[in-house]
């Protein structure tokens, strides 16, 4: 899938370029487009500090996290052959948050530590594995969603417990703000904390692409076509968990991006689950970056948390997909 052959991918890359510039420009300190670009490449005093130290890491984080959410959503939907699959539906962000919160609660680490992404990844991995194990193979989407809801609620309860039992008010504040999901006040340390995991997750999910195509015909047929289905499942589940965990570790809980974007790009790629992956990642990055610019533009005392915005947009979309596909959801095996 070369760039020249796919107008969708080149269009998304151009869009990402525009959004990235917007993200460098928009904020409390006024900077013009040319000023922001100049400040990025040469030392322009205060403008350079704002653009390079505050807005650039934030932009990169939104791109990375949006990309891996879009990719994970498309990968999981392809794996389970179901348009409602997403890490958020499996309770993975909540479980990742619990993993990280436990680290903070026990005072093991601050929010700037390598232990945080590892704990979050472990939480995400555990939740997806638990949902898949409980629901079983060939489970209907109803069972999957119910299992995901239960696992997510359990993780949420665990987090609430940690907050209510926390003897340290500073830890509580730290946990609560971090949980809401935001790219505010993030630095290059955050980018470095998540980037290696996101690269790894992308590699895992993208390498499963060709197999996903055959999986559209069901596990047995895919196997008969020479696809190693257990390996494929492992690649995508591990990729989605690592990507979600790393993202939650640096940006808190941001849901529903992965659910929404595959739907937006699928009609442009002939519904091919393999060709959905890269555009879904790019669209996820664009959506999250646009949302992050939007939260800076919404007039309010404190910045609206991006996790809140994506949930406000994503949940109605989720409901709309359910309503539209109601009839098939009853019997569709995942």
């Amino acid at each position, binding site marked *: 899938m070369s760039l020249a052959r796919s107008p969708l991918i080149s269009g998304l890359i151009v869009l990402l370029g525009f959004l990235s510039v917007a993200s460098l420009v928009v904020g409390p300190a006024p900077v013009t487009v040319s000023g922001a670009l100049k400040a990025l490449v040469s030392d322009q005093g205060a403008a350079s500090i704002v653009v390079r130290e505050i807005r650039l890491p934030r932009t990169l984080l939104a791109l990375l996290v949006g990309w891996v959410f879009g990719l994970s959503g498309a990968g999981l939907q392809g794996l389970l*052959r*179901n348009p409602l699959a997403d890490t958020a539906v499996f309770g993975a962000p909540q479980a990742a948050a619990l993993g990280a919160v436990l680290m903070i609660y026990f005072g093991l680490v601050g929010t700037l530590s390598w232990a945080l992404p590892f704990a979050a990844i472990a939480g995400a991995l555990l939740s997806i594995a638990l949902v898949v194990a409980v629901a079983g193979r060939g489970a209907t989407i109803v069972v999957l969603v119910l299992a995901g809801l239960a696992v997510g609620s359990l993780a949420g309860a665990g987090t609430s417990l940690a907050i209510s039992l926390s003897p340290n008010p500073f830890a509580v504040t730290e946990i609560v703000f971090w949980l809401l999901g935001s790219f505010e006040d993030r630095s290059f340390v955050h980018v470095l904390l998540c980037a290696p995991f996101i690269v790894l997750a992308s590699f895992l999910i993208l390498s499963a692409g*060709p197999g996903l*195509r*055959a*999986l*559209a*015909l*069901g596990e*047995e*047929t895919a*196997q*008969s*076509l*020479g*696809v*190693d289905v257990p390996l494929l499942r492992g690649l995508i589940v591990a990729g989605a968990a690592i990507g979600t965990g790393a993202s939650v570790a640096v940006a808190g809980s941001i849901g529903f991006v992965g659910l929404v974007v595959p739907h937006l790009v*699928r009609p442009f790629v*002939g*519904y*091919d*689950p393999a*060709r959905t992956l890269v555009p879904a990642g790019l669209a996820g990055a664009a959506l999250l970056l646009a949302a992050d610019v939007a939260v800076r533009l919404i007039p309010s005392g404190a910045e609206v948390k991006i996790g809140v915005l994506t949930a406000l947009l994503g949940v109605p979309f989720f409901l709309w997909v359910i309503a539209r596909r109601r009839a098939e959801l009853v019997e569709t095996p995942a």
Partner: protein
Amino acid sequence: MTRLEARSLTVELGTRLALDGISLSLEPGRFTVIVGPNGAGKTTLLRSLAGLAVPSRGEAVLNETSLAGMPAAVRARAIAYLPQGGGVAWPLPVESVVALGRLPHGEKPDRLPETGREAVADALRSVGLQDHARRPVTALSGGERARVQLARALATQAPVLLADEPVAALDPRYQLVVLDVLKARAREGATVVAVMHDLTLAARFADAIVLLHRGKVEAFGPPETVLTEERLAAIFGIRAQVVRQAGKLTVMAESPLPEAGQ
């Protein structure tokens, strides 16, 4: 020429013995039909012959090589498998679904070489779907979708074709069309094996019949030697007339027999 064999094949599903020491040799150039009552192990036998079910004892062997040790890609090029009622998850165009049959040859469905495109076009033509190539598969009727799946299996051009109830969802005309296609593949030299419930169609089209009962081969041979009135009574629990008319064997099921012990 590709010979597919089962050697003392035993498969356990949970605690149930699904196949109990089956030995068979399936000849190239022949259309073999597996019949048997529900739960006899027909699908398990077909899956084992496709290398998809793991035997607890014995092995499935393709040209003297055990399927268990065969690389998946080699096996996929040699054996095309058509599962029962396989659905397609996304509204993919019909030709893209059929093009998936080229995956074992390392051909990407969106960039097929000339040989692949010809194989897909031939397969679509043989099941009468050449005019539906660009339609989304989800917009087709159940029978049409079953033919798409068969076309996908044909497009692999594998020397072995295994089909699980390939005509179950089809109207009478397409049952005959599909069975003709399977028989033609056998005449071209392929080893073709299908699971079927319709004994009359099985008797009409099969070169050989495997009669399976409780995980064991009850009989294996030409239809007229396997499908006898006594066996149909003993194994299927039906009273049936087996008539030979104008060189064709016809099985007419008449009534169910009372179950043993009643």
